[in-house]
């Protein structure tokens, strides 16, 4: 029998017992809806988590540390660092330049962070300050903020994090209610105002054993050569800084700048030569008079190249860490979550598939004589089988389409309800639920296949009917 004849007969048969077939189709719809709602919730939560990580703009970033750094990112790194600490390299300016020359690397910049004191209207405020590269001007955290990004890479300007701006203005809202105060309101009294930053500057000291010129020469010719003769002084300095912008970036969301509440142009931060915690460690080990960096952030052209760049940097003798490493375990977690949600969602579909079997078996009993007639006038076993398959498939297809729509609506309602709750808790709205196109297609195809499988037994039973017996049936 031709496909369109088969479809036409199947639809006509379904219409004849419309109530029973509609109820079966609703059963499939509910099954598919629960599956779609469960999976869309899983996918939505995964997207939410990834979105929050992506907001930091560091999916394309590799963080590089020296193998001498005892704070390894993994056990392997720790073991390797112990084994090769002696011959490992210092993370200094030449190393930074070498990393920057690697293929697919956009830029490599040191992470400069330090805790210092900022005076505003003669009141001291202790906080973490972080250097921000010029490339961060396109970052989510700095686009559309009140004020502007730094006018140049060395401008004596600062961008304040919202909580620090609140602190400067003496506003201390109860915890969790900072979001109620708009950033623009904070920007008005602070933009253009001046802060004074007090910091400890590292100044290279002349050699204690000879002519300063000799020491300078030896430092430039062999910067990584250990030289216990070299030293540096720490001098207290002050720097006037103008407030140019206020950002409501979550202080914990940006690697490198984590927990910093005041941002400086990176070049300015470097030029200030602020004493870094690593300086003390390096001087105790007597590695170099050249300042070394605790970490370097490497921006890669495309997140896909992160792994290759990580490998290349490791070959240079450094430890690396990328957010992709963290998301790998996150992806694994969500894969398991999706699997469980999918299994629970499928339970309803399994029940629905039993409904299909029941409906079709009932249809065989009712249409026994009709099957006999069809066989008597020339229908083959496969014609009868295909007809029942087509009926099961049509119910599955229709149930799948309605189910996806229902699942979408359920997900939408869950999202709406959760956001109403979040709003009451003074939390920002979020999208917890997502129905990607592949899920729409996969759910419909899945419902169709499940229905066909459910139709296997009834179809085979109908095809096996003895026409002589069937024709006697009243």
């Amino acid at each position: 029998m031709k496909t369109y004849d088969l479809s036409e007969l199947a639809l006509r048969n379904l219409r004849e017992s419309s109530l029973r077939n509609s109820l079966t189709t609703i059963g499939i719809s509910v099954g598919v809806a629960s599956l779609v709602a469960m999976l869309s919730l899983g996918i939505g939560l995964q997207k939410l988590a990834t979105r929050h990580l992506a907001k930091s703009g560091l999916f394309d970033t590799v963080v590089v540390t020296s193998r001498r750094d005892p704070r390894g990112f993994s056990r392997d790194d720790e073991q390797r660092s112990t084994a090769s600490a002696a011959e490992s390299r210092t993370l200094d300016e030449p190393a930074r330049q070498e990393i920057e020359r690697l293929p697919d690397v956009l830029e490599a910049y040191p992470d400069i962070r330090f805790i210092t004191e900022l005076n505003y209207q003669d009141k001291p405020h202790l906080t973490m300050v972080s250097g921000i590269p010029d490339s961060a001007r396109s970052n989510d955290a700095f686009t559309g903020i009140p004020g502007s990004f730094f006018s140049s890479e060395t401008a004596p300007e600062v961008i304040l994090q919202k909580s620090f701006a609140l602190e400067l203005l003496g506003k201390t809202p109860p915890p969790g209610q900072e979001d109620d105060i708009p950033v623009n309101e904070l920007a008005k009294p602070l933009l253009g105002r001046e802060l004074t930053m007090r910091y400890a500057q590292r100044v290279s000291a002349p050699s204690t054993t000879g002519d300063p010129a000799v020491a300078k020469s030896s430092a430039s010719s062999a910067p990584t050569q250990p030289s216990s003769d070299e030293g540096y002084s720490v001098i207290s300095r002050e720097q006037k800084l103008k407030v140019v912008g206020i950002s409501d970036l979550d202080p914990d969301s940006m690697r490198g700048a984590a927990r910093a509440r005041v941002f400086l142009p990176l070049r300015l931060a470097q030029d200030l030569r602020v004493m870094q915690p690593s300086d003390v460690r390096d001087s105790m080990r007597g590695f170099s008079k050249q300042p070394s960096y605790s970490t370097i952030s490497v921006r890669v052209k495309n997140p896909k190249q992160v792994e290759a760049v990580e490998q290349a940097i490791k070959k240079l003798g450094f430890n690396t860490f990328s957010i992709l490493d963290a998301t790998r375990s996150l992806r694994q977690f969500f894969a398991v979550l999706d699997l469980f949600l999918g299994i629970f969602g499928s339970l309803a579909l399994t029940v629905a598939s039993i409904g299909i079997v029941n409906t079709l078996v009932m249809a065989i009993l009712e249409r026994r004589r009709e099957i006999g007639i069809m066989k008597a006038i020339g229908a083959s076993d496969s014609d009868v089988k295909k007809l029942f398959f087509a009926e099961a498939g049509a119910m599955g297809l229709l149930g799948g389409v309605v189910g996806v729509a229902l699942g979408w609506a359920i997900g939408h309602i869950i999202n709406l309800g959760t956001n109403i709750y979040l709003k009451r808790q003074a939390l920002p709205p979020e999208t917890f639920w997502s129905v990607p196109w592949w899920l729409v297609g996969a759910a419909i195809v899945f419902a169709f296949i499940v229905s066909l499988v459910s139709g296997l037994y009834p179809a085979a039973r109908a095809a096996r009917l003895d026409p002589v017996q069937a024709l006697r049936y009243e």
Partner: protein
Amino acid sequence: MTVDSSRPNRQNGASAIRIVDLCRHYQMGEALIRAVDGVSLEVQPGEFVALLGSSGSGKSSLLNLIAGLDRPTSGAVIVEDHDLSKLSREELAKHRLRTVGMVFQSFNLVSRMTLAENVDLPLRFAEMDRGQRQTLTRQALERVGLGSRMTHRPSELSGGEQQRAALARALINQPKLLLADEPTGNLDSRTGTEIMDFIREFNQSLGMTIVMVTHERALAERYAQRMIFLADGKLVDDRANDEKQHRE
């Protein structure tokens, strides 16, 4: 087995139906039912044969075996040179579709379908295009005088009209063999005559071989060229219809 020597003269060439020592036995609990028990006969192309006998004599069982709806316990049914006992289920379905047209006592139309859809059904199984199907269906229904009732459902028609529709359906694939199982059993005598006139017309104008099961001897004598009598599954008499020849 009694075989009358006055059977119509055999035409030269292959028989339309050749049955050799055919048996169809059923096990009903402890009892063995011999529905057809060692029947042998031949039917020539274009012949109009009536199978007569009382209830339970095995007429319908024999007809079902010729139709390929049932399989013999032993023996052979050869229709148009095909031994049905050796055909697969799919091949038997093709035999019913292409070679045989069937008419039943209870019409056996699908009640949920219109007349046109009922008549059209074998053509769907034959995978014919929709346009061609529609033309053939209309022609078949017009031939039996139901051209104006195409969209009616069987329940909206009289018994005679339903049987005419069943005849149209049996003829739609232009089979060589028409098998009729008590075609007038559910009809009054006037309507029954009308149906039998149609069957005779198909036999005469289309050269179709007819095997008709009936328990009405008068009807057989009026229309059939040959009468075969069955009793307890056995062929007890096979003779030419002299009365019909005489009348003609």
